[in-house]
């Protein structure tokens, strides 16, 4: 009996404004939200996604949960930046996610609030802070307490698994990367190297991408893909867990409604239940159902992105690495300045999407990146200039704050804030 483990990843970044070199100021800006982030653009994209995907797909999932009386279960990983924007622009989206969770059959995974790359910093305390922020938000808004973890874009390594175990999570998910699995199948539960209890689920990229990428491709020999056919494939898949992890925007945004993607989803549970070797499980349930079949060691980071399945999507070139290390190196200053508004802006700047828009990879990947980039008319260099100008301006804001705080007080405040930060976690 194989568990079908669906996990939908729901995310929207808080997009940046275009920022000129001449905009770099000396640090006396009052409102950093308006200065760095394009609320008009963010609202536009959020509304679009809410109307095309979140609301209609949530409705379908709610019906499926109600109709299938406990037999249909799945997981969600929802970023903090998405929930924060939902609260601001479309509270009914938060409400509908909350209703899904209220059935008790939906598992929400934790991650970094800001969909950041903080798991790659040499000091992991910022990563841990962002995970705790996410945990608080999910408990407050959705009324559930996450037990499992999914890092930004499934970025994973032994080091990250160990840190996540240290935070008390029972399971972590990542990509079923061939070079890691070797002869092994992604359809089993694994144990991360150097960990005691936490379990690892690996994405079945073939079956996940059949839905996520290929569903509407008319040149694909399996097109059109029906729920019936797909359930037959699932049933014929050997192993214990079939991990189908995909972007939530697959339903209605990446594939438009008229491709039949929403009908596919509506019929998937009933078609799967026609096979008596299939049942649905959340990530937490699936991980707990089976003993780990082997230990997997992942010394350097993998992810689910691009053909390389590593971090090159965000850190593949000089301009990406420059922004990343500028941001990482600002951390001590942020602690010193200890200002709520600076922290919030700082963390929003860490969202990985900003780095993805700077990718200069070859054509096939570039197309994917361009598809997601909100800055249609501009390339990676323009995006870098705007982003680096913002970072430069932000540094000035931080320096200004530190300089303006009376020395003694600032030292005290720094110590206190450190404590508050710790308590928050």
């Amino acid at each position: 009996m194989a568990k079908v483990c669906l996990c939908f990843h729901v995310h929207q970044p808080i997009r940046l404004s275009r920022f000129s070199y001449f905009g770099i100021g000396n640090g006396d800006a009052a409102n950093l939200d308006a200065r760095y982030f394009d609320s008009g653009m963010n609202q536009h994209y959020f509304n679009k996604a809410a109307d095309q995907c979140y609301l209609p797909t949530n409705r379908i999932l709610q019906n499926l949960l109600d109709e299938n009386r406990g037999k249909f279960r799945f997981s969600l990983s929802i970023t903090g930046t998405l929930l924060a924007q939902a609260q601001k622009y479309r509270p009914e989206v938060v409400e509908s996610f909350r209703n899904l969770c209220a059935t008790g059959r939906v598992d929400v995974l934790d991650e970094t609030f800001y969909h950041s790359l903080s798991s790659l910093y040499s000091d992991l305390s910022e990563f841990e802070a962002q995970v705790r922020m996410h945990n608080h938000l999910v408990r407050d808004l959705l009324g559930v307490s996450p037990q499992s973890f999914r890092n930004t874009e499934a970025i994973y390594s032994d080091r990250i698994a160990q840190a996540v175990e240290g935070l008390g999570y029972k399971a972590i998910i990542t990509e079923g990367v061939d070079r890691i699995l070797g002869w092994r199948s992604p359809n089993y539960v694994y144990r991360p190297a150097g960990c005691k209890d936490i379990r690892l689920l690996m994405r079945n990229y073939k079956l996940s991408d059949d839905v996520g990428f290929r569903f509407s491709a008319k040149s694909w020999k399996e097109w059109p893909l029906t729920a019936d056919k797909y359930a037959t494939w699932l049933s014929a898949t050997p192993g214990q867990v079939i991990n189908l992890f995909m972007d939530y925007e697959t339903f209605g945004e990446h594939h438009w409604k008229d491709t039949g993607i929403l009908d596919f989803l509506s019929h998937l549970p009933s078609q799967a239940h026609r096979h008596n070797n299939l049942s649905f499980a959340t990530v937490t349930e699936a991980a707990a159902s089976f003993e780990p079949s082997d230990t997997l060691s992942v010394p350097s980071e993998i992810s689910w992105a691009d053909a390389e399945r590593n971090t090159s999507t965000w850190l593949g070139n000089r301009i990406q690495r420059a922004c990343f290390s500028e941001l990482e190196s600002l951390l001590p200053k942020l602690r010193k300045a200890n200002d709520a508004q600076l922290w919030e802006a700082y963390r929003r700047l860490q969202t990985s999407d900003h780095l993805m828009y700077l990718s200069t990879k070859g054509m096939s990947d570039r197309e994917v990146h361009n598809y997601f980039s909100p800055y249609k008319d501009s390339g990676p260099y323009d995006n870098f200039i705007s982003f680096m100008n913002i970072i430069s301006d932000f540094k000035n804001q931080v320096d200004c704050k530190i300089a303006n705080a009376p020395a003694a007080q600032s030292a005290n405040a720094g110590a206190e804030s450190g404590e508050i930060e710790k308590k928050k976690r």
Partner: protein
Amino acid sequence: MLGWEFPPFVSGGLGTHCFELTRALSALGVEIDFFMPKTSYEIRQPWLNIYQADWNLLKPGEMQLDVLPTTYSGYGGASTQLQFNAKRLAALSKSPGQSKSYDMGFFEAVGVYNHIAALLVEKKHRERPYDVVHVHDWISAKAGILVSKKTGLPLVSTVHSTEYDRTADLWPFGWILGVEKDMVRNSDQVITVSGRSAKLLFDKFGAGKGKVNVVYNAIDASKFPTHKEPMLDSNGRKAKVVLYHGRLSVQKGVEFFLKAAQKVLSRDRSVKFLISGKGDLLPRLVELSFDLGISDNVMFLGYVSDDQLKRVLCTSDVLVLPSVSEPFGIVALESMASGTPTIVSKTSGVGERVKNCIKVDFWDTDEMASKILSILAYEPLFEEMRQNSIVEARGITWGDVAMQTVGVYKKAIWTRAASSAALAMI
């Protein structure tokens, strides 16, 4: 093929284009007779036959002097480059059959060249038949049209630029526009060097979509050194250098470059701006650099040869092509080949071809200045653009251009054959 110039005898990009194109075509097995105006030099290359249109190549009976065009002398925007060409053509006036007092104006020179070239091509065609006649720009169009009409040979024309581009659409010269329209109408296939140029042919010349082909220019990147030779200021520190290279004319948007320079200098007083090239706008630009208060930081280099350009690029940190209207803009490829980060206006055709440059609106001098400052300020950006530019330029080869050009030749031959077959059936 009919052109206007050929290395080492060049004043603009047309000569280099014909040099590289014919060499690459010949590598594909295309045999080329190349016709150009008479110069006082002998020009030879192993991959083609070059004929300099000269009365001496024709017998007295073949000259047909009565069809010479009437005199045009009122070309208001005539650039020094064209005048320079005219001087060169004066050699023609010493040919037999012409009185000594014949004052050869530029347009007459073009007319005479086209006249002689047409007769020569026809004569050569009778000796050994051609498959296609290929002309470049209006300047050799008349001859191509004439030959094509007389012999029935398919005509291919390359539009490197139009009168609308050269005058920034401000005072297009009607007679040249007429020749250009004539050329497009009479060509079996037309080649443009960018999509925006093709669009102009559709919109303004009413060209049929079936006969316009976009074939972008290319670059022999191996000719460009990629190292950097820092220019040192008076204190021995490396100066940051921003380069403009091209004709100094309205079309090229050099004034916007200077206005952006002023804005850059408002943030960073140490930046140097080089303006290389000559043109009728020079006095106005010098004046403008004084008016803007930036004359200390702007250097006018005057005419810079191809070889000198390679060295100037080595000392430059950014090249800007701010053209108001640019069919292609090959200097951007040269800059990229040399590993110099490149900014081009959105109204430049080259921007359609390359990915690793930054595109701005020519009028948005704030944005232009912001991008210049950013490239100068952020080392990782400079280095990333530099490396990617070099790699991309290496992939933009004349071999590809020749392959596409042969495709256009074939199309021209087929359409001509198909239409004569259709005619025969009637």
